[in-house]
């Protein structure tokens, strides 16, 4: 009796099972899913006073100032695999009556340069700040190099200086990261 009933039961339910299906679908498409988020993130900023370019104690010009910061997130292997491009955007607002050369040198742990960006900043005045922009877009190959670095050395060079020099060099910057997660 039990066996007979089980058979009937399986037959009945199987009818339901087999008349239903997943028509017109292709689950292999999962392999083609790619996330391509574009992330906007602040990078560095500074306000360099004109006084930074003069050594008042020794009455001498300081023509080069530099600072460095780690950017650990760049060097990680996770980001390396998924970052496919980046736009670096730098905006300088200058009220110092001098132009500047500014370089951003991306270094690895051994302080070896992996990628160098350089730009110039136009002179301004205290009453009329001058804004200079610098955008560097990196393709997949260039970003591969840059992501071997994990810190950036920022060097600001002034052609000449004096103790009367006044004003501020302001930098604001951001990066757009183009990610591709498969």
């Amino acid at each position: 009796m039990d066996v007979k009933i089980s058979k009937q039961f399986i037959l009945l339910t199987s009818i339901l099972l087999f008349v239903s299906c997943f028509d017109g679908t292709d689950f292999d498409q999962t392999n083609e899913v790619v996330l391509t988020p574009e992330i906007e993130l602040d990078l560095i900023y500074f306000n360099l006073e004109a006084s930074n370019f003069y050594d008042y104690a020794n009455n001498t010009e300081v023509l080069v100032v530099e600072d460095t910061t780690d950017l650990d997130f760049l060097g990680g292997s996770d980001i390396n695999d998924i970052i496919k491009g980046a736009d670096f955007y730098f905006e300088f607002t200058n009220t110092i009556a001098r132009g500047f050369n500014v370089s951003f040198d991306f270094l690895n742990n051994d302080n070896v340069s992996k990628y160098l960006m350089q730009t110039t900043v136009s002179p301004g005045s205290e009453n009329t700040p001058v804004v200079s922009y610098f955008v560097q877009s990196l393709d997949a190959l260039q970003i591969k190099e840059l992501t071997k670095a994990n810190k950036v050395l920022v060097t600001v060079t002034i052609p000449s200086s004096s103790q009367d020099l006044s004003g501020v060099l302001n930098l604001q910057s951001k990066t757009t990261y183009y990610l591709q997660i498969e």
Partner: protein
Amino acid sequence: MKNFLFIYLAFGLSVVVCQNKQLLYNWEVTPQTLMLNPGSHVSSQFHAGIPLASQFHFNAGSSGVSVFDVFADDGVDINAKISNTISKLSSRDFFTVNQQLDVLNFGWLSKGMEPVYFSGGMYQELDVIAYFPKDIAVLAWEGNREYIGKAYDFNDVSARADLLTVYHFGVNKQVSKKLTAGVRLKLYSSLISVSSTRNKGAFKTSIREGSANVYEHTITDLDVEVKTSGFISLDALEQSQVSKKLLGRALLGGNLGIGLDAGMTYQFDNQLSLTASVLDLGAIFHTNDTELYKAKGDYTLDGIELIFPELVNGEPAIPYYDNLEDDIAREIPVDTLNTGYTQLRPTKINAGLHYDFGRFVGDKGGCNCKNSGTKQKRVSQAGVQYFSIFRPRGLQFAGTLYYTRRFGKTLSIKTTYTLDSYSAKNVGAGLFLNLGGVNLFLAADNLLQMSNLAKANSVSLQVGLNYILN
């Protein structure tokens, strides 16, 4: 039997539904009707579910999207379809999976001065609900570039998953000529539980006049939490040990909880009756093997400010990046706790108004009144049913119109039309066979989509095998 169950599991996993069992509610299927309303009419003297086959139930559903929307083989790039789906769904849309397997189910009529029907048993349940985390999905899928000024809300993250076993024992009694009432006590043993349901806070990238850098990235009023129970002790175990451990928890070795079902049937006259029940009014007390992760705070990120210090030879550079990480960790600490917590079970409410009509079924040619003293059954019954369940974001409702037709003692068919969060075209049907005391039932939902389940937002399936002595 193993293969048999496997077929249904495989089938179940490929379809979609919620916890509404509109087809079994107030139907002939004694053990399951009693599980849905402990105060339902019982006309049998004894029932025993075939172990592991007494009832298998699978429900899965998504309120705003079907498998077809994303996986249709239509030549359209799947990424474009996912983008469309993300923009179509809201944070009130959800995905659910509910599966139950009756391990044991039995009941008997105690014939004393006051006849009472006792029933008990044990079942295993898996219950998962995840609301669509719209804002987080947009952020992950597209990034913040096109959404400067938009606040991404962490409140969108709300999900819960429970695997548990339930031991239950209930009594059912005809209180008066018109009223039958019943209660069921439940003991829950949680195997695994994960939830993250009360999150708040927002992330925003904005451009603000006078801010230090190009953008201001802010995390405001963040308060997020993930609770887990039953996971950490499984981490270091081998596969075979995991199964052993879970089996131990299934046998009342897990975090325990207690709950109550209650229900009633009120017979207005020979034809009209009202039923109502509340199920799983209770909680699980997670005291062992818990791990909770909490993050709370506010933070504003402007990037890294360089101050070009004058360094004397050998003086280390300022660790800007480490300082930034320390700042974030201080302002938004992430705590891992092992404290216990209590979790309410998702309580369900059922109600129905039922009307019997047509000629009488020859149930032994007379009154079927062993326990309930109820009326003789008629061939047709129609009515309305209501179902609701308490979910993390409030109640989910369903309304059902149904018609039941009995063909002698052997066969009963129930058809339903249900309106719920998933769809407005859900037609279901159930088949109940009584062959010499052995009862089989099969019930399925969303029959209109049965020819292509991929297009269905939800489907449910219940099958079962019981022995009932009338």
